[in-house]
């Protein structure tokens, strides 16, 4: 069946959830090197989620909002630059996809928390990475402790954590979670004109906590919590590499 339908028609036909307009618009704006700071400020100011996250990035040492020294979007942009805003725009669909995955596959409410409020990861943990390349280069890192990885895999497979005997099932579930997050995130990039391809995710046990930033690009650290489960996501990207 050949199909000449527009994206809007296909989106309706397939029952797609509406996209995050502000994140798409922001990605489009920031991907241009001559982007207008006023317009970017307006887009972020209109979206409470983006605004909150930008201010959090601009106040890395603050324990809570009362301690913020950078209080406006404009100041935050001046301080952090465009690389940070692009990563912020990209990580919004990524965070939404992760939250939705937890809701849909595990029936758990995942909260986006301040990195400083999270209990730090220690020792051996599960590390998933996925790279993307094309008009934008970057990498997404997903980290969790082994108990969280086991709980997630068991929840997705609908069994109790004790029934999980195969380590491959744990790493495969983490890889699929990473795949779902980055697939949604990649769609946002491509829609903004930043065509790129995803590599196959790599999941392994690690004691390495380093997240090297892509040269010249931005880096954002995210943390999430659902009960005892904690997830740490780092996103680094550079759309201006060529």
């Amino acid at each position, binding site marked *: *069946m*050949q*199909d*000449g*339908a*527009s*994206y809007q028609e*296909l*989106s309706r036909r*397939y*029952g*797609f*959830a509406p996209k995050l307009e502000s994140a798409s618009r922001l990605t489009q704006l920031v991907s241009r090197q001559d982007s207008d700071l006023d317009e970017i400020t307006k887009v972020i100011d209109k979206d409470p989620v983006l605004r909150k996250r930008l201010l959090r990035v601009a106040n890395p040492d603050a324990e809570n909002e009362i301690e913020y020294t950078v209080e406006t979007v404009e100041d935050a942009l001046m301080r952090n630059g465009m690389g940070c805003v692009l990563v912020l725009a990209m990580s919004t669909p990524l965070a939404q*996809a992760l939250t*939705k*995955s937890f809701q*849909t*596959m595990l029936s758990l409410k995942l909260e986006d928390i301040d990195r400083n409020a999270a209990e730090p990861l220690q020792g051996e943990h599960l590390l998933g990475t996925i790279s993307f390349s094309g008009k934008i280069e970057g990498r997404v890192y997903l980290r969790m402790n082994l108990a969280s990885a086991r709980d997630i*895999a068991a929840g*997705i*497979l*609908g069994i109790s954590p004790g029934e999980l005997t195969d380590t*491959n*099932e744990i790493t*495969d*579930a983490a*890889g*699929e979670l990473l*795949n*779902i*997050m*980055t*697939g*949604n995130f*990649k*769609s*946002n*990039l*491509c*829609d903004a004109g930043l*065509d790129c391809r*995803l590599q*196959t995710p790599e999941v392994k046990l690690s004691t390495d906590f380093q997240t090297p930033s892509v040269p010249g690009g931005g880096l954002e650290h995210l943390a999430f919590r659902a009960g005892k489960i904690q997830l740490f996501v780092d996103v680094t990207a550079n759309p201006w590499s060529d």
Partner: protein
Amino acid sequence: MPIKILSVDDSRTIRLIVGRTLRPYDCVLCEAANGEEGLATAAREKPDIILLDVTMPVMDGVTMLTKLKEDPELKAIPVIMLTAESGRDNVIHIARLGVRDYLVKPFKEDQLIDKVGRIVPLKKKEAAAPVAAPATAA
């Protein structure tokens, strides 16, 4: 004859979820971990419907779909894309190649049943017949 469904996904987790979702229905599930295996399994098993991921090693889902549609014996098999990618150009390209539906991950199990059930007749398995009570002596 039970419905034959082919799930092509490199993630074992997704194939397990698909299997669990379809377990109550009268169907046979075949699996493949990439497009190359998917084409071979489709040619061998002639499934009634294919659930197809996009990003996979060896051969991705778009390449498999292209080859499937070029094959006179396989091109009529309906395909539902089951992927996290819903970018505009990708969706339009895939629709032009010819798919019956598109389900974005993460998905709810009833969404999958609904979409598959619109294309092939999915019937719940009949409950196991109750064990006959032993005859009582008169």
